[in-house]
């Protein structure tokens, strides 16, 4: 639907109540796959991390990865879920060429974790309670490449190629209960929820949590109902929304699209839709139909998972600090204002700043660098900050040099540029580019005298109390020193001259 056919967002929110539901798939970072000993690694040659089990050769049988089960339990606990005394694997039967056995080994009516609850804070600082329906274990599918036709698109492709390296990679699927009452905040809430999940699994080190690699993927269910109506509206499921920005945009788009249709007296078809990052809209996928009869039944090749309370408690005790508490702690440790802290959270910079402070920088200077210059660079190169070649240690190093008076702000920015360009540590960049500020007073005084000679009246003005007159000379001196001077010190020296 063209942008101008969408209902304006505010109008949509006025007329309809928004109900969302989120399914997040988390790829675990185990060494091996869910049911076989093949390496769970990203970016190998196609079909080199495969075996009779994960390409579904006749006669092969699955064997459950213990670490994957423990990671799943950990995620369940972090979500505040109950852990099932008996969890069972089930087969989800449907034909698709990226699914080696033409069934996905998943969990159905006996998931490992269920009934959880998360408090999710959105950028405005508002908090929402999100109820977790379940978290279950399953296996990822292989990767399809569509050849011919429109570039890599599935329509019009002449043929497709299948790589099963990803087939059988352990997934935990986290499903929320329907989320009511988020109103116009629904899109932000969706994004904040996914961010929180990502933060959690990252801090627990059960997933690499790189959305750009599909380690964390979100399917967003959206439905609208006229204000005051009991019955839920028909929902659409927007699949594989793979960045936080897209989650927010996709939910917002669906709200506007559905509102426009409903307002015209139309009906929403229950279907899966696809988010197009490039076009900023969703397109219709497959309508829900009999083809969705997955014929689940207990996986006869696997036995039930019955975690002992000892195991559960040992996993619970090893859980890292819960993100909400961690935020509270960091905010008070760092003494940031509400606004400063929210800015940091929303730009996903908690880890970087914490590390930078650990490396010896003050919280405020760490914040200034990450939310300031570094964010600016990332933006101009439109990259993720995490994608830039600068470490918290680098930032702390640069700040040390500033505090030692060896760098001024401009030089520091040059040093950062050098670090980003891969020229080495701040110290190395300083050395290579010769960026250190000149501290040799002799050289400074000589430069000052030269400048004063050109502007004899300046000293007079200063003596008359027009101290700002020093500015002109400072400028000249800095120029002469190619910026590698400490402006403050230059000013002092000029004032001494005037005495």
């Amino acid at each position, binding site marked *: 639907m063209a942008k101008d056919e969408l209902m304006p967002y505010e109008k949509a929110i006025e007329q309809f109540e928004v109900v969302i539901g989120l399914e997040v798939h988390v790829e675990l970072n185990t060494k091996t796959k869910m049911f076989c000993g093949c390496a769970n690694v990203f970016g190998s040659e196609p079909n*080199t991390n495969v075996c009779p089990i994960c390409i579904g050769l006749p006669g092969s049988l699955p064997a459950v*990865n213990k670490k994957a089960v423990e990671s799943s339990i950990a995620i369940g606990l972090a979500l505040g879920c109950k852990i099932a005394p008996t969890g069972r694997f089930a087969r989800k039967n449907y034909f698709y060429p990226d699914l080696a056995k033409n069934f996905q080994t998943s969990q159905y009516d006996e998931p490992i974790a269920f009934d959880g609850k998360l408090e999710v804070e959105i950028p405005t600082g508002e908090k929402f309670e999100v109820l977790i329906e379940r978290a279950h274990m399953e296996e990822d599918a292989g990767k399809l490449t569509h050849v011919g036709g429109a570039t890599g698109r599935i329509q019009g492709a002449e*043929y*497709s190629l299948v790589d099963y390296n990803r087939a059988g990679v352990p997934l935990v699927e986290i499903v929320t209960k329907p989320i009511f009452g988020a109103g116009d905040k629904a899109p932000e809430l969706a994004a904040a929820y996914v961010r929180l999940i990502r933060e959690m699994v990252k801090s627990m080190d059960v997933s690499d949590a790189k959305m750009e690699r599909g380690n964390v993927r979100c399917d967003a269910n959206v439905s609208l109902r006229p204000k005051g109506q009991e019955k839920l509206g028909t929902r659409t499921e927007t699949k594989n929304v793979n960045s936080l920005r897209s989650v927010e945009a996709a939910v917002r788009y669906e709200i506007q699209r559905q509102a426009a249709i409903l307002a015209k007296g139309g009906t929403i078809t229950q279907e*899966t839709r696809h988010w197009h990052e490039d076009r900023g809209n969703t397109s219709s996928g497959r309508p829900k139909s009999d083809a969705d009869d997955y*014929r689940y039944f207990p996986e006869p090749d696997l036995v039930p998972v019955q975690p002992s309370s000892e195991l559960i408690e040992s996993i619970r005790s090893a859980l890292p600090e819960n993100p909400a508490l961690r935020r509270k702690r960091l905010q008070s440790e760092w003494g940031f204002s509400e606004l400063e802290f929210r800015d940091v959270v929303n730009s996903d910079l908690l880890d970087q700043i914490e590390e930078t402070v650990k490396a010896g920088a003050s919280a405020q200077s760490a914040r200034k660098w990450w939310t300031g210059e570094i964010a600016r660079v990332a933006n101009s190169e439109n990259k993720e900050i995490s994608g830039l070649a600068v470490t918290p240690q680098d930032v702390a190093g640069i700040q040390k040099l500033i505090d030692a008076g060896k760098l001024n702000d401009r030089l520091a920015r040059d040093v950062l540029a050098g670090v980003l360009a891969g020229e080495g540590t701040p110290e190395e960049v300083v050395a290579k580019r010769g960026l250190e500020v000149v501290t040799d007073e002799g050289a400074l005084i000589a430069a000052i005298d030269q400048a004063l000679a050109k502007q004899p009246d300046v000293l007079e003005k200063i003596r008359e109390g027009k101290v700002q007159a020093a500015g002109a000379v400072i400028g000249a001196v800095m120029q002469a020193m190619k910026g590698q001077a400490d402006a403050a010190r230059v000013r002092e020296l000029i004032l001494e001259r005037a005495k």
Partner: protein
Amino acid sequence: MSEITPDLVRHLAGLARILVTDQEVEKLAGELSLIVDSVATVNEAVKGDVPATSHPIPMANVFREDVVQPSLSQQQALSGAPDSAEGRFRVAAILDED
């Protein structure tokens, strides 16, 4: 009498990805009706609350350590494939986007 209609057979064959001709559908509907009628007796057998048995020998918590095992080579993996290209299994185009 069981509800195995030709349409149901067509639907089931679709789910099972098996092409069926109209004669096959008719034949199967007849055969399956007989079979279903006779197997439907399992309903009479179960009275009251009986647990299901999915594993004849009850076991639980059978796990594999998270240790990498040797994989097949790409060439081994593709050796049985009807068609392959660029180190991948090659298949006809897929229509429905999902």
